[in-house]
């Protein structure tokens, strides 16, 4: 673990791999250092951002040094089921690249428990990982000018859902009606770091009953607050200082 400074605005912690980044993020959400406003996990790093008027990077770095992240630990921020129609334009390519049949690609994608590792690219775009490595595929050589909202895609070790129409270079596996980013909702993002996701296969629209119900039939423990984000937020017992706004991903 390497602790790097971003002047008096942040502390960037570099780790060996995504697993370690997730473990560190989990430890930080549990015990956010004082003066940190945002925790930004990424593939090999976790950035702790301080107030834009500047903060005490030394104190934050010291607090990070005292953390003892447990490898394998991942922040839990709720569970989500995402029904997908697996009819993406790149499904055949993904099968060819992985050496699996198209049906097996779907089986692996629906069989794995995915975790949102971090967000980026656009508000509400989550990078999801799982322990199964069979679906690792490179990005497309050329990005598409427009990927439709709800597209479920693969790239590298990640799967993701495009929150809105945008250019994109990931390989399209299918699509979902689940709206992953909605400002009318609190929190607006369904895919927050630590949220566990199970993809389920949904038949093509022609065979669906009541296909008009665009209100996505997703069961979200995270939203109901049964055990999800609420639990992460509600877990801080008797600790009030510094952590108020650092509940990354909630």
């Amino acid at each position, binding site marked *: 673990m390497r602790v*790097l*400074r*971003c*002047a*008096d*605005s*942040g502390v*960037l912690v570099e780790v060996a791999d995504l697993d370690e980044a997730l473990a560190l993020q989990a430890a930080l959400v549990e015990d956010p250092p004082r003066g940190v*406003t*945002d*925790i*930004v*996990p*990424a*593939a*090999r*790093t*976790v*950035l702790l*951002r301080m*107030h*834009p*008027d*500047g*903060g005490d990077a030394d104190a934050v770095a010291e607090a990070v040094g005292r953390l003892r992240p447990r490898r394998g630990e991942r922040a839990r921020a709720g569970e989500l089921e995402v029904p997908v129609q697996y009819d993406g334009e790149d499904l055949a390519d993904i099968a060819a690249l992985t050496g699996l049949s198209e049906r097996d690609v779907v089986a692996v994608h629906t069989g794995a428990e995915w975790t949102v590792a*971090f*967000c*980026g*690219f*656009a*508000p*509400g*775009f989550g990078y999801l990982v799982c322990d199964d490595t069979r679906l690792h595929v490179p990005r497309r050589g050329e990005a598409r000018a427009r990927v439709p909202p709800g597209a479920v895609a693969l790239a590298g070790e990640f799967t993701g859902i495009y929150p809105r129409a945008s250019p994109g270079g990931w390989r399209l596996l299918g699509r979902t009606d689940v709206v992953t980013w909605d*400002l009318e909702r609190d*929190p*607006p*993002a369904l895919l*927050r*770091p630590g949220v566990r996701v199970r993809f389920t296969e949904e038949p093509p629209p022609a065979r669906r009953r009541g296909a008009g119900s665009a209100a996505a039939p997703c069961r979200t423990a995270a939203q109901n607050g049964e055990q999800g984000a609420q639990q992460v937020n509600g877990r801080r017992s008797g600790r009030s200082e510094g952590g108020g*706004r*650092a*509940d*990354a*991903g909630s």
Partner: protein
Amino acid sequence: MPAVEVVRTGALSTVQDSGRRGHAALGVGGSGAADRTSYALANRLLANPEGAAALEATMGGLVLRARGAVTAAVTGAPCPVEVDGRGAAADTVLHLPDGAELHLGAPPSGLRSYVAVRGGFDVAPVLGSRSTDTLAGLGPPPPQEGTVLPVGPPPRDLPAVDWVPARPFPERELSLRVVPGPRDDWFDDGALGVLLSSAYEVTSRSDRVGARLSGPALSRRGGGELPSEGMVPGSLQVPPEGRPVLFLADHPVTGGYPVIAVVVAADVSRAAQARPGTALRFHR
């Protein structure tokens, strides 16, 4: 409730406050006033609570009309100020009667001016902030001609001063303090020395996301790609061609190019006032 009508917007005017915090993990940036110092000064002049929303005008040109009596202050880039055609002073408390027009001319130096009103602009907050994030397209849409911005209820405190000394604005050169890293080890041995000994000019391809600089290229030590990582305001991010971009309020939450050094928080506001053509010098 009083309100303010936008008569002319100038090049770009947006509503800004102290920014959006706590949502970076969802890919939502900090945004907020690019020059936090001038923005805070405007609110302080009016005894507004910290974080009251103001207008940020780029290169002046903003014309506002009071609907009802409005108390206002103009800070930041020192643009000529007129109320109903008469000269008025920046960095003071201005009393605008109903129907009065506040006119901001083009500032001779600096880039961004702030118009605060007593009570703040009461537009709907998005994710806890009234700031417009121009990169993510989040927050209140930039006002157009005819947009009416409601003014919030006046704060309990009364303005304590009616004038503050303005800070000097850079003309041609600006010196900014940096701390090397976090990725200075991704660059050639001499790169940091080049950064600290050369003048970098702010180009016209600059906006609220960042100031794109021209000057000697900073070359990288080897190949390899940096996995995207979190960024802070003030970061000097260096794309492959070697000319740094100085990240400002609407910078992306994560970036895939290495950051050679970061401008200290107190100097980022000054950097946000550097108009194209200004030479930046970086020192430790």
